[in-house]
């Protein structure tokens, strides 16, 4: 998991769907080893691209309705939302350069 702001079912609308900037959402859980490895990478992306995107995290164990709504069956799942729409996806723990390439359009 990253050090990003934790978003819940109560705040998802405001923090993600209604955000001005594109938002990278890290869907994670405590039991997921690769999620732990991906966290620091998303923290770096958050820091380096702060002007263009927000990075937040959603604990799927505590927010099962959001995970179900977006059809998440594998974590870590990293989604990009723009203008309230889910526009890009990256599944699994990937190196920083790969994620930056996957999400280049939004960074």
């Amino acid at each position: 998991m990253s050090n990003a702001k934790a978003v819940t079912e109560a705040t998802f609308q405001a923090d993600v769907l209604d955000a001005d900037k594109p938002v990278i959402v890290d869907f994670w859980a405590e039991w997921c080893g690769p999620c732990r490895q991906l966290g620091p990478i998303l923290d770096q992306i958050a820091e380096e691209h702060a002007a263009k995107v927000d990075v937040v995290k959603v604990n799927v164990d505590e927010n099962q309705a959001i995970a179900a709504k977006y059809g998440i069956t594998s974590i870590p799942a990293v989604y990009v939302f723009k203008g309230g729409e889910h526009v890009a996806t990256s599944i699994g723990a990937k190196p920083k350069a790969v994620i930056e390439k996957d999400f280049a359009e939004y960074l």
Partner: protein
Amino acid sequence: MTPEEIREVIIVGSGPAGYTAAVYTARANLNPLVIAGSVTAGGELMNTTDVENFPGFPEGIMGPDLMDNMQKQAERFGAEILFDDVTEMNLEGEIKTLSLADGTIYRARAVIVSTGSAYRELGLQDEKRLSGHGVSWCATCDGFFFREQTIAVIGGGDSAMEEALFLTKFAAKVIVVHRRNELRASKIMADRALAHEKIEFIWDSEVIGINGADKVDGLVVKNRTSGEETTVNVTGIFVAIGNDPRVDLVKDQLELTAEGTIAVDGRTSKTSLPGVFAAGDVIDSTYRQAITAAASGCAAAQDVEHYLANVSETLATV
């Protein structure tokens, strides 16, 4: 190239082989640098739960905890650990150079390659498309999403049985699809799976198709004897059909075996290039256990120690 100091030894990879090599080389005052990987640090055990067969843990230990311990043990003796990925290795000559994803270049007299192995894929067209949408390689990560559903595990080895047994905590039913008519798994794991009321088996069959528009809704299996094709309704597919040694960065420089592992000289860790040693799953297509990888890392560390001692002796006498 950045004017980096020339190190004694760099260890690439941080599974049981890499960390054991780090403990031993650190204790030999070789000041090892471990390039642990940005997302693969800790290796395959990071995706497992209970490790019950690593000696010294009578009650078992969680895979990630075991790897955290190994990391701490290596650090205690001064091993330096870097969580980045090697993108290029130049292993010829006396000084080896390794480039990292961030552009940094490191140099060393000796390198231990302990890059482990990567999950083998089924090689089906729909596998990638539905990856993350019902197709998974990590039962511990994704089992949670398949509560009360019927799912499949592909494979017949220890990893497949471990995944199947773990997934029974969540799933209504776990169907194991295996190419042969008996399991390759160790007896204790096989017996547990065979006796489990939630686990069913489809024998002698291979997966030839994965169905689903935007998420998995079925699996097409073909019986290898009769040729009969059957569709099995499942919402999740966990692939555990083995691993391939991770040799991408070295395959053009080091000799490989017919199995695709790095070739080493007899029981040693010596590869086809002087100063380059290999340990763990990347040299082993037979045993592939945490404990055999650790042992192999220990051997590599000692081979490096002797190699460096000989190199400096040669230099001293010139």
